[in-house]
């Protein structure tokens, strides 16, 4: 298996195949990152495309001083922040808009020709679980959701988060702790109701 750096070099020389391999390697991570942050498939798909377009346009700037994934997720983080800002500006960030986006999603988009068919029951239970998690996450503020994503799912340290978001590390810690407490309360409430 070719290393990221080799694929980047080939892609920069004009190899469409190398670029495709690189994208396929990371698209699932970027898509799920987007799904958790944006809360619906339509926006997540848009964000993923924006991220890879940004990566492609800036590929010649990648110097290999950090891991390719670190560099790529920095772009992903910035694109997510931009998209959230745009969404807020256009007042689309409400539950109804999210529901509409879910409803408007083309079911044909869910077909994945690249992968073998999965057990339908497993797919259903997986989506329900993800849907629950997304419901909990969407109860958080944008900043809290972003920090949970970076800490829990991307396993960043607080110092890395502080640098990425240009905030003091202590602010990142407090924000994360508050978010975690809120999530715990929500999960407990749901558990009590069921």
């Amino acid at each position, binding site marked *: 298996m070719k290393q990221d750096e080799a694929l980047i070099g080939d892609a920069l020389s004009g190899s*469409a195949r190398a670029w495709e391999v690189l994208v396929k390697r990371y698209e699932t991570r970027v898509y799920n990152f987007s799904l958790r942050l944006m809360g619906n498939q339509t926006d997540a798909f848009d964000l993923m495309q924006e991220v890879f377009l940004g990566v*492609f346009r800036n590929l010649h700037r990648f110097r290999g001083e950090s891991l390719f994934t670190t560099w790529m997720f920095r772009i992903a983080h910035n694109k997510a922040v931009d998209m959230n800002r745009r969404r807020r500006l256009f007042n689309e960030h409400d539950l109804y808009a999210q529901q509409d986006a879910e409803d408007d999603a083309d079911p044909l988009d869910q077909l*994945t020709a690249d992968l073998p068919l999965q057990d339908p029951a497993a797919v259903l239970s997986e989506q329900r679980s993800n849907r629950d998690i997304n419901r909990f996450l969407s109860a958080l503020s944008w900043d809290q959701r972003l920090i949970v994503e970076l800490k829990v799912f991307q396993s960043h340290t607080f110092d890395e988060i502080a640098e990425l978001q240009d905030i003091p590390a202590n602010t990142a810690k407090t924000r994360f702790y508050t978010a975690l407490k809120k999530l715990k309360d929500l999960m407990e409430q749901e558990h009590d109701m069921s």
Partner: protein
Amino acid sequence: MTCHKTEFLITEYLEADLSGRQRSILEQHLRECAYCRQELGAAQQTQAQLRTWQDETVPHWNRVPESLLKPGKPRRISGFFGWQWAPLAVSFVLALAVLTNVRISNTSDGLVVAFGGDAGVSEAVLLEQMARFEGQQRLQQEERMQTLTVRMEQRQDAANVQLIESVVSQFGETTSRSLEQVIAYFEEQRQQDLQVLQSSYQQLADSDYQTIRSVQQLATYVQYQAGSR
């Protein structure tokens, strides 16, 4: 029961790259503080629940940008001097040319590029140009008014026919009284149309005079600029 160290402890404990010494200090506190123990347990459980997220598969999409798909064409990743800046650059140059009043003329000495206004333009020439422009504007205005009047008349005729049909169908027969009412209604409508027409004409005229005034101001400015050089 609470503990002022809880937030610090949990956030530090969940940090992946804690040194052995740091971890042992935290664990020492955890052995002594039931509240922190409970809170840490809850935080870890919350994290664990979040991590049950199952990666969803990516919908089908075109992964390769078009610029990579064109065969034989050397790929160029957009840089600062990429083509996307060309329209902006052209706009800038044109704006600069307008602001500095650049003139390019072909004389017997070849192409001559001059900056600034032409001091040779006399006031009489400017006034003549203005008068011509004003005349053209008036002609256009009259044409537009004629078109507007024709359209208004056509629309009113159609409305009148519709009204007569509606009245006839409602009463079955045209009595002299209903005809009088219809005529009175027509007269009233005509008066209203005339008022609408007058106000439209006034708006049109105002807008044209405003344009003329703007052009006059521009001409005065150009003249002033030319005179000051």
